[in-house]
């Protein structure tokens, strides 16, 4: 009965929902996609094809999808979160059985002509599932270690499956995003330490069981000179391109390193290098500022939300976006091993863009339904 009443609440009719959308945030996302268009236009040597035009089309599709998701009631999303989790795990298993093998790993699956990486969807589904779990939790139950075991398993299952693909980078990011939700839910500091302590040993064990190409990446990172034509070459060329951009950059379409093919993968992983070369440190900082405001904006949405589920979801999704940005930018500067993580909404590539927009759709739904009242099944009341 109560539920029915909530559905018809005056504040949740369509018009007021549209008004409640955070349009400033949408504007930020459009600006970021615009940056992507400009950079991809340059990456193609001053042409809309083959990258920039398609990028714009994808963004428009993504934007419509995002706005549609924003209007879905957050309580419905909450009830479907474990379903989403189950679908994510099923897709991960499917990709293992019949996925495409690219660069030595099975990551891609094709659904209706669209290639996608289930691991990207999984991260959002995991955030939803964890938020749903902690949403119910009372402060007392949070203190009970047994209560934490199911969500830990919920993190480990997808992380294990992604490791098996094998995709070390995404597995680590997934684990970190999961940990962020745990942290925000109020799990005690010392419990994190307890989990973090065995990590170095696990890392040593994992290193010994890595695939050759993964080990090569780490080795290359430790000793870049050992593989002059491989990953070390990419990083070196990326640094040269960035450095030659200087403070103010060489100007739009004037970058030489990218255009002379010195810079590999300039339209995907190394798109930020392209920006740094043509628009200099100032331009790169402006883009980083835009990225940061999207991250912070997401966190603010989390803070303004009045229910725990929405808070955790918004925080998890923003944190996931932050991890993308961090890994990609750190990679092109040679600060962490190359991991094939694109710069979200800027790099060329359809599936990553759509998954990121899907996440922002959920984030926006949190914002639209920030004052929603949940059924009083929660132990808190």
């Amino acid at each position, binding site marked *: 009965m109560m539920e029915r009443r909530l559905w018809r609440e005056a504040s949740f009719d369509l018009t007021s929902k549209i008004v409640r959308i955070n349009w400033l945030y949408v504007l930020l996302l459009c600006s970021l996609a615009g940056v992507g268009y400009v950079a991809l236009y340059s990456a193609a040597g001053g042409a809309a094809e083959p990258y920039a035009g398609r990028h714009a089309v994808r963004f428009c599709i993504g934007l419509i999808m995002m706005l549609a998701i924003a209007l879905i009631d957050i309580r419905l999303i909450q009830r479907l979160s474990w379903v989403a989790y189950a679908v994510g795990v099923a897709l991960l298993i499917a990709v293992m059985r019949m996925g495409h093998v690219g660069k030595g790993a099975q990551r891609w699956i094709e659904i209706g002509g669209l290639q996608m990486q289930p691991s990207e969807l999984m991260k959002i589904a995991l955030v939803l599932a964890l938020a749903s779990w902690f949403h119910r939790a009372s402060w007392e139950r949070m203190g009970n270690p047994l209560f934490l075991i199911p969500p830990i398993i919920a993190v480990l299952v997808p992380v294990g499956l992604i490791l098996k693909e094998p995709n070390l980078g995404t597995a680590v990011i997934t684990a970190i995003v999961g940990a962020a939700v745990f942290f925000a839910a109020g799990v005690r500091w010392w419990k994190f330490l307890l989990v973090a302590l065995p990590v170095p040993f696990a890392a040593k064990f994992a290193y010994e069981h890595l695939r050759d190409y993964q080990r090569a990446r780490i080795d290359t990172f430790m000793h870049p000179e050992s593989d002059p034509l491989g990953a070390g070459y990419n990083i070196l060329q990326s640094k040269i391109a960035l450095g030659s951009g200087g403070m103010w950059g060489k100007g739009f379409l004037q970058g030489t390193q990218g255009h002379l093919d010195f810079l590999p993968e300039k339209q995907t992983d190394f798109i930020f290098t392209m920006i740094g070369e043509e628009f200099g440190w100032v331009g790169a900082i402006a883009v980083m500022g835009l990225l940061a405001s999207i991250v912070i904006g997401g966190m603010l949405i989390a803070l303004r939300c009045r229910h725990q589920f929405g808070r955790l979801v918004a925080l998890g999704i923003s944190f996931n976006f932050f991890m993308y940005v961090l890994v990609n930018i750190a990679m092109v500067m040679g*600060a962490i091993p190359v991991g094939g993580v694109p710069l979200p909404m800027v790099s060329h590539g359809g599936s990553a863009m759509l998954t990121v927009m899907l996440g922002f759709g959920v984030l926006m739904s949190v914002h639209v339904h920030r004052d929603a009242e949940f059924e009083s099944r929660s132990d*808190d009341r």
Partner: protein
Amino acid sequence: MRRETNRTGVFTRRALLMMGGQVAVLGGLAARLYQVQVVEGGRYATLANENRISARMIAPPRGRILDRFGTPVAGSRINWRALLISEKATNVKATLDAFSRIVPLTEYERARIDREMHKRRHFIPVMVREFLSWQDMAAIEVNAPDLPGILVDVGTTRIYPYGEHLAHVVGYVAPPNEADVSSDPLLALPGLRIGRAGMEKYHDLALRGRPGAVQLEVNAVGRVIRELDRQEGVQGDDVGLTIDAGLQQSVVTMLGDESASAVVMDCRNGEVLAMATNPGFDPTVFNSGVSQAQWGEWTRDRRTPLINKATSGLYAPGSTFKMAVALAALESKAVGPNDRIDCPGYLDLGDTRFHCWRKGGHGGLDMRAGIKNSCDVYFYEAARRTGIDKVAAMSNRLGLGMELELDLPGQRAGLIPTREWRMAQGKAWNIGDTIVSGIGQGYIQVTPLQLATYTARIASGRMVQPHLTRSLGGVLQPGSLPEDWPTLDLPDKALHAIREGMWAVVNEAGGTAPLSKLPDPKVQMAGKTGSAQVRRVSREMRESGTFDSSKLPWEYRPHALFVCFAPYDAPRYAVAVVIEHGNAGAAAAAPLAKDIMIETLLRDPANRSEPPAAKLARAKP
């Protein structure tokens, strides 16, 4: 509600903490970016604009191919060449025009350079010209300022010390085509060659090795300022053959001008010690592309120099097939070793008369005498009693008419007909077909290598498979021990009866190859002659009495065949010789096989660790 506030409070505190962390991390990245772009920017800018780092792969040296004693039969030699990096040339056409004034380029070469330049990324060098003389190279170096984008470097080219004597076994290398390049980027390197035939093809991946890389600092016109880092590639593995190059050379020389093939095999383990095909060709020609004139000459030559006759020449085995018929008859108990079959000089079947080679016939013969005299009527009858399917099964077991497990590309299977095969053609099997199959004629086709394998199996009683690879990267490959091969599973008595017949062919008065008796009575040879008609002999020709196959035009003369093994009491070597259109096996092939066997026994490659000449050379000083 208080608890709810408690939970919210924790969330707010921690979320703010995380936001602070995120801002700090992004700030750190921004600072690091400032370091890379602005503080160190000048240095990188110089690297980018004036001295660019250019990384190139270096082709690894191709592995060698060695004979069984380690003598190289395929190796590499230094090769000066001029390359063009199109992105370093301001005007490619002008550079190539200037180059043409020093070293003339043909239209054909210009077209090839254009094509390769368009297909490859423009910092990958494209070959302009290789095998440059010292003078040309010096001229290019002197004129370097007029030739932006051109660089001279040293590569390697393939050489074959035994040239045409071993061409069919070793094969050759040739420039890779576009399909090859897309399968392995290493092949895009200028001057890299890919194995196209023979062992070069079969072991191509092992021979290829792993590429190295060199980082060069180059200036704006592509001149190398200095080398920053160099990592040598890993040389391809050496492939050790079972071939004795010295023996191979002698055998080819003995074949003379004939269009012929000879195989020498170790009976006990199937190692091929010599596989000679005459005439040969010069394998180095393929390295730089075959001229049209050369190609025309090869295709017009009716002795087919490009075809490896030992593995893909198909011949009717003629009388050399009779041992297979005899073994099939013995195993199926259709004919016992002492059963006598009468030969009146012909066999009548309905209104067809099948002749024996000896007019007037041989009279009554047992199996030993049947083989010794190579009596056709005996084997017509033996085949008729045994049936074609059992003969075919035995032939296959002995290695005839089927693909062998040979490590050399391009072998042909040949054919031993069966009823089923004939039915698949939509025709019924004729008893007459069985009869002519009894003397190795009709539909039967085998290769010289199959004949050698067949002889080796009869001599050793083991299912040896012929093979050419003895070691790979210095590691001995399995198959070099007799125990590596299963037995034929035939009774010793049967094999013995056959071997004895073959012994009588060579060593007894009245045998068909008395000239092939070895000079040393302690080492005896057993063998079997064969001549395979390539055209049916008509009754008129036979009855006119003037039939003499040596007066026929060359391409209508019968092929001459001989198979043998020695020493008779402890079989070690098997030899098969096929001389195309060589007339009678006894006259043409048997003496040659004897010479080959003597040479093999003298060199005794299976019992030595180094070639006999090496010992002589060491003994001299």
